């Protein structure tokens, strides 16, 4: 059984007991425990079920590489699936649930998968099964697999994450990722040059694994050295140290993401839960250490089989042992340290099985001296299946698994050698080289990732570079730190501290690669030998893929799903490659590795989103009258980032009713529209007229000061992009109105042409959209209300037809407000658009509302605006246009100047396709029964296309119920439309109804424009 020992546990505080639950069961741990160590202390060997076969699984590792111990953590609005027990710090009240089982962890019917279907759920199972026999999939396989597959449960959809998150931008000379002894040494070497250094450590404590492994540094124990070095670094102004912060990813041009977990160990304490550091170091040093590889033998996934160094971590760091009778299997000397540690802790080591014929070195001798039996050239044939280790069969390594000896054991410590953590080095293109002596890929310093200046920007330090011995690790780290500082422009000073001298306590015998135990294991064994624990990929799967012709490692990865789980193959990668290489009869370096992609370890979606949630999810643009609208029943419509009132709802009124009321009232009495969102661009300079002639299809240079002109803008390929009224202010100044969504876009469009094409033209542009609040005063009583305001103020600008004619503007005062008034109309009514300063917008609006009571004033929203303009046949950018429509399609020939040699879009509009008479053209549409056409509906004509679908001959672009006319009205683009006036065409709607509509003139109301010209 696994249990807490009476002694040891350098990271736990035995005076502080912590209660937590696992699957509802109350358990106890200590401050400093991880969830993993606390589960082991409570003999909870079984922590979850595997993804595909629902095999019982236990802890394999002690860090981020753990593939099995994924749990659902927290409850309610703090629940999160797939959290690793090994990286979860224990806290009081922690509630964890195991995953992938039904009905319970102990008794899972899904395990049948393993028994009944493991023959079928092999590599490429889904690909093969989709093909035949088809009926089997739908009714037999799919329901069964859906019930059993999947990793964890998603949080409840109705609940919102209770926590907050944030980003933080940080710049430094040298970033060191990893706070083990190598990281600390690299940081110190870099910082001594004066470089600004940031050090990130993903765990809550510094020093990494060296205190577990032992040795001396600068004559000190690792722990003493770590304490001293930390104190030195903390005392330096140019060094920033962060624990619980993982270097998550390395990106182009040296951009690094750090993932700080602020309250995961103390949920609900307030403040952000995670902080995403967006770091721009000059140089990055990855001191990310190495990960031990599992050994591939049958039953290597039975709970109790654990990495040897992880077992040592649990003993030394947390004082727990996974078993009482442990068998150690290895191909290198390091695992002997585990045997010694177990022995010293009073745990029986039943056997050390060393695959090497020649056995181990000094450490092996020490183990032998402790009276532990060592067998060389031997292998594990099989660990007996079950929910924990009970029996282990051993055999000759160089064989097929015969002549087994069975040994009783309740845990297995395995070591297949070590691989440096090269992920961060590789994220941005750092290349690897095969180190045959260590049987691992390590960073090739000659082929580092390069940045904006073409120079390397990532270096590695310590075990992450490849060396495993403490002396080499420390020397490498010191050099890496200094090198990084120099590359960041901080050359070493003359007075440097003495080079660090470290020693491990022993010399080790060379490891021997062992990719399969035993070397020629038969198929029964290989089918129980797991490479990728999380995705249930076995040795036999990779071999099958190779037999089926998969040669590329990237293809094999996808076909078998090897390394595609949330652990990204941290444990399985090299072992899988080796099996594939063997099956292909190739060398491992020739097979190569798959691509390492960020993040190193999953990070929360919350951290990525940062502060952008709730009210600040997205900027919401508000006009100066926003609050008034909001308190007067505004039903909001998003228009870009703006919010505009769609309609103002009165008590008990539906949106539809409100819109109809607003339409009628504006036509009959007086309406008020907040038009502040319309873009307003000032264009000024000696060449401004010439410039606007190029931008608009119409002639703007000839516009007289005091006058307005409606203008169209096209893109260079001829399509309509924006429209609006242009007012000429003075000899060299124009004011261009754009659509609400167009202000920033058209401003940018103008700047682009001025800066990149006509840079010798003297024109300046300024966006004054937000300087002004603009109010459209619309309806038969429009002039009356404005004149009343003037009368109250004792004077103001003359707003009579004679003084301010249609399509004219004037500066002056209205009701005591400094204002610019435009006689323009988008409704067909008598209409003034009045611009006042934004800071007075609300006051002006309120004055109008008050003065307008006797004239029946009502505010109206965007839907009423749309209906009013549609009744008049005015086009709307974004409704009648969609980026493929040219002015000619809309019958706007009158707005295309024939006098100009050039304007943006002119050349494109004579391309053959643009001049095609078959292009769909704008018409009005009236349903025969008065109903409202569905938006976007297509008209069908005779015949069918190549796919057997009916030919389409047009589509609806705008469609409304017109309260003025009490019927549906619409505009649309129809093939040969203007020549087919009076014809009736069919628009199939949804649910089978066919709308019949007559082609009519698009101007439905007041065709002669009598209402606006008063």
């Amino acid at each position, binding site marked *: 059984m696994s249990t807490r020992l009476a002694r040891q546990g350098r990271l736990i505080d035995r005076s502080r007991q912590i209660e937590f639950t696992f699957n509802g069961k109350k358990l106890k741990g200590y401050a400093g425990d991880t969830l993993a160590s606390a589960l082991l202390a409570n003999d909870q060997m079984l922590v979850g079920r595997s993804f595909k076969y629902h095999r019982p699984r236990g802890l394999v590792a002690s860090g981020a590489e753990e593939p099995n111990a994924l749990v659902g953590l927290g409850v309610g609005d703090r629940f999160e699936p797939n959290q690793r027990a090994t990286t979860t710090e224990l806290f009081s009240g922690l509630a964890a649930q195991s995953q992938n089982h039904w009905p319970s962890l102990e008794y899972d019917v899904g395990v049948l998968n393993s028994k009944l279907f493991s023959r079928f759920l092999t590599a490429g199972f889904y690909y093969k099964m989709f093909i035949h026999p088809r009926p089997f999939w739908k009714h037999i396989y799919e329901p069964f697999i859906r019930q059993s597959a999947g990793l964890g449960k998603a949080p409840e959809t109705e609940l919102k994450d209770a926590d907050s998150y944030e980003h933080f931008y940080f710049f430094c000379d040298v970033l060191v990722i990893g706070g083990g002894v190598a990281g600390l040494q690299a940081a110190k070497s870099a910082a001594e040059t004066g470089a600004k250094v940031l050090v990130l450590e993903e765990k809550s404590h510094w020093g990494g694994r060296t205190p577990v492994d032992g040795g001396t540094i600068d004559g000190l124990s690792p722990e003493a050295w770590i304490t001293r070095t930390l104190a030195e670094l903390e005392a330096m102004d140019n060094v920033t140290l962060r624990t619980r912060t993982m270097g998550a990813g390395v*990106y*182009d*041009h*040296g*951009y690094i993401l750090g993932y700080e977990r602020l309250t995961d160990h103390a949920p609900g304490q307030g403040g952000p839960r995670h902080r995403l550091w967006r770091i*721009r170091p000059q140089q990055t040093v990855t001191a990310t250490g190495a990960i031990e590889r599992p050994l591939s033998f049958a039953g290597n996934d039975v709970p109790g089989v654990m990495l040897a160094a992880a077992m040592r971590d649990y003993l030394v760091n947390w004082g727990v042992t996974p078993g009482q009778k442990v068998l150690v299997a290895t191909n290198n000397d390091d695992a002997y340290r585990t045997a010694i540690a177990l022995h010293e802790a009073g745990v029986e080591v039943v056997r050390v099985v060393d695959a090497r014929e020649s056995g181990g070195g000094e450490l092996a001798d020490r183990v032998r001296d402790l009276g532990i039996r060592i067998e060389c050239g031997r292998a594990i044939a099989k660990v007996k299946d079950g929910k924990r280790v009970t029996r282990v069969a051993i055999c000759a390594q160089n064989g097929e698994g015969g002549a087994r000896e069975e040994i009783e054991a309740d845990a297995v410590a395995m070591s297949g050698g070590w691989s440096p953590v090269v992920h961060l080095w590789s994220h941005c293109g750092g290349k690897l080289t095969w180190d045959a002596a260590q049987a691992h890929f390590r960073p090739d310093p000659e082929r580092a990732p*390069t*940045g*904006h*200046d*073409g120079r390397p920007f990532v270096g590695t330090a310590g075990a992450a570079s490849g060396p495993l011995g403490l002396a080499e690790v420390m020397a490498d780290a010191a050099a890496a730190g200094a090198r990084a500082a120099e590359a960041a422009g901080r050359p070493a000073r003359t007075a440097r501290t003495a080079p660090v001298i470290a020693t491990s306590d022993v010399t080790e015998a060379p490891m021997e690669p062992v990719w399969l135990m035993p070397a020629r294991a038969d198929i029964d064994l290989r089918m129980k030998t797991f490479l990728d624990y999380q995705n249930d990929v076995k040795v036999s799967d990779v071999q099958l893929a190779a037999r089926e012709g998969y040669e590329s490692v990237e293809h094999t990865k996808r076909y078998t799903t090897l390394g595609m789980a949330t652990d990204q193959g941290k444990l399985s990668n090299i072992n899988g490659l080796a099996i594939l290489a063997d099956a292909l009869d190739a060398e491992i370096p020739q097979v190569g590795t798959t691509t390492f992609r960020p993040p190193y370890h999953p990070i929360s979606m919350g951290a990525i989103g940062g502060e952008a949630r709730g009210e600040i999810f997205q900027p919401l643009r508000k006009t100066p009258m926003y609050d008034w609208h909001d308190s007067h029943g505004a039903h909001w419509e998003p228009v870009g980032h703006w919010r505009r009132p769609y309609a103002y709802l009165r008590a008990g009124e539906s949106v539809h009713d409100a819109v109809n009321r607003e339409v009628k009232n504006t036509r009959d009495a007086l309406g008020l529209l907040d038009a502040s969102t319309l873009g307003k661009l000032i264009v000024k300079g000696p060449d401004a007229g010439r410039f606007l002639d190029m931008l608009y299809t119409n002639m703007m240079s000839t516009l007289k000061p005091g006058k307005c002109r409606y203008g169209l803008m096209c893109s*260079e*390929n001829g399509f309509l992009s924006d429209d609006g009224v242009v007012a000429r202010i003075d000899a060299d100044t124009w004011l261009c109105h754009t659509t609400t969504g167009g202000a920033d876009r058209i401003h*940018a469009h103008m*700047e*682009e042409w001025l*800066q*990149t*094409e006509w*840079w010798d033209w003297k024109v300046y542009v300024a966006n004054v959209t937000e300087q002004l609040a603009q109010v459209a005063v619309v309806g038969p009583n429009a002039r009356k209300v404005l004149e009343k305001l003037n009368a109250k103020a004792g004077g103001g600008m003359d707003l009579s037809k004679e003084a301010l004619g249609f399509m004219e503007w004037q500066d002056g005062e209205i009701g005591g407000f400094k204002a610019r008034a435009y006689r323009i109309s988008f409704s067909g009514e008598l209409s003034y658009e009045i611009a006042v300063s934004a800071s007075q917008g609300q006051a002006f609006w309120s004055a109008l509302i008050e003065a307008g009571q006797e004239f029946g004033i009502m505010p109206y929203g965007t839907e009423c605006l749309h209906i009013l303009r549609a009744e008049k046949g005015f086009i709307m950018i974004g409704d009648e246009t969609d980026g493929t429509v040219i002015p000619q399609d809309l019958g706007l020939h009158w707005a295309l100047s024939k006098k100009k*040699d*050039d304007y943006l879009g*002119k*050349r*494109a509009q*004579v*391309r*053959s396709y643009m001049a095609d008479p078959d292009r769909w053209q704008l018409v009005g549409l009236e349903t025969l029964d008065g109903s409202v056409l569905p938006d976007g509906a297509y008209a069908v004509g005779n015949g069918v296309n190549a796919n057997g679908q009916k030919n389409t001959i047009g589509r609806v672009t705008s469609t409304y119920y017109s309260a003025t006319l009490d019927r549906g009205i619409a505009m649309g683009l129809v093939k040969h439309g203007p020549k087919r006036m009076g014809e009736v065409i069919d628009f199939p709607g949804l649910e089978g109804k066919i709308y019949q509509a007559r082609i009519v003139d698009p101007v439905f109301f007041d065709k002669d424009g009598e209402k606006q010209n008063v």
Partner: protein
Amino acid sequence: MLILQCPYCGVTAEETELHAGGEAHLKRFGPGSSDDDFHDYLFMRENPRGIHLERWRHVSGCGKWFHAARCTQTLEVFGTYSAQTTEPPQQIKDAISAKRPGWSWRDVSG
């Protein structure tokens, strides 16, 4: 995430402050141009693996357009330069030549 130095305000800006504007040094064809010339101007773009000349705008900054000479393969930036030019200045060409002797892009070369 790329960083480029804006030649107008001197800021070394990260990509989130910038807006990519596609290929540099396009020659505009207007009314009277041939169908082929106009078609190429509108639609035909270089997509090199290697040296590329591009337009960028420091949109969340000084607002100015500028040019960048960049390697699309290694992302190395050889330099940024004024938008008000129809070809890269000699200094930029030299910077590219120093790293990629014998380079060419459209009809531009070292």
